[in-house]
């Protein structure tokens, strides 16, 4: 059995996270109705990233895991961003 204390996320936190995510979904849909041309994609991606951050932090429990997990996730995302940047810089400016 565990002897160390385990973090239990209250039901209420999960409910609030769900409401926040649904609100962001609604915002994304509303924003895309307004035509901002190139900005639309950027805003949609920005909101999606915020939603992803919330899912990773609360639903996937990263906030309460040991920092090792957060370092790993950060490194993987960092490497992926590098791959995107290098590929796009090659593709768009060749």
């Amino acid at each position: 059995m565990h002897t160390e204390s385990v973090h239990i996320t209250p039901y209420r936190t999960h409910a609030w996270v769900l409401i926040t995510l649904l609100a962001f979904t609604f915002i994304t849909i509303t924003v895309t109705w307004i035509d901002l041309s190139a900005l639309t994609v950027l805003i949609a991606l920005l909101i999606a990233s915020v939603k992803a951050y919330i899912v990773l932090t609360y639903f996937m429990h990263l906030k309460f895991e040991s920092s090792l997990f957060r370092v790993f996730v950060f490194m993987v995302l960092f490497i992926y961003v590098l791959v995107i940047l290098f590929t796009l810089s090659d593709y768009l400016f060749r």
Partner: protein
Amino acid sequence: MEHRDDIGAKLGMWVFIFTEILLFGGLFLVYAIMRSSYSTEFHQAAHHLNAFIGTINTVVLLISSATVAMSITAVQKGNNKLAVILLVITLLCAAAFMINKYFEWGHKIHIGLYPGSDLMLTLSHGQVMFFSLYYFMTGLHMFHLVVGGIILTIVLIKVQNGTINEGRYVLLENGGLYWHLVDLIWIFLFPLLYLIT
């Protein structure tokens, strides 16, 4: 005394999730490049997608993610009964998602919009590219949803018979992580495919 390492088990699950992120990441990269090359074609093609079904599926997946997260809380508090109910809701959401997808894909295939169809041959290269990516990415995502559903069904049985309990629930946590990954991918797929008209 049995050997047991919950942190290690979760770390292993995360390493697997990283490979999944890079798998879909590659596809998102293809999407980004194709979209920058064929932005007008992508806009035209995206008009064929049903944003309403896409929105419903987004809501359904978010709810299912919340119920999985809550089922962990329930098991931690020793309330396996509630955890079972929450997991059943999750699986029902997964089924709803699949039914929506069936109608969505079914309609497209009915009007002849599928890879290799006669109608597809008349479209421009950019539009064909959009539909290929649409079918491949949502298809691969749906495959993950089915796998996630199978994993959660196994977890559900174990919660029901008490193999997963308040002292031992890492399998539920890992199953939950996989389910959240499915949700995470959809969070990006939805605006990029459905909302670019």
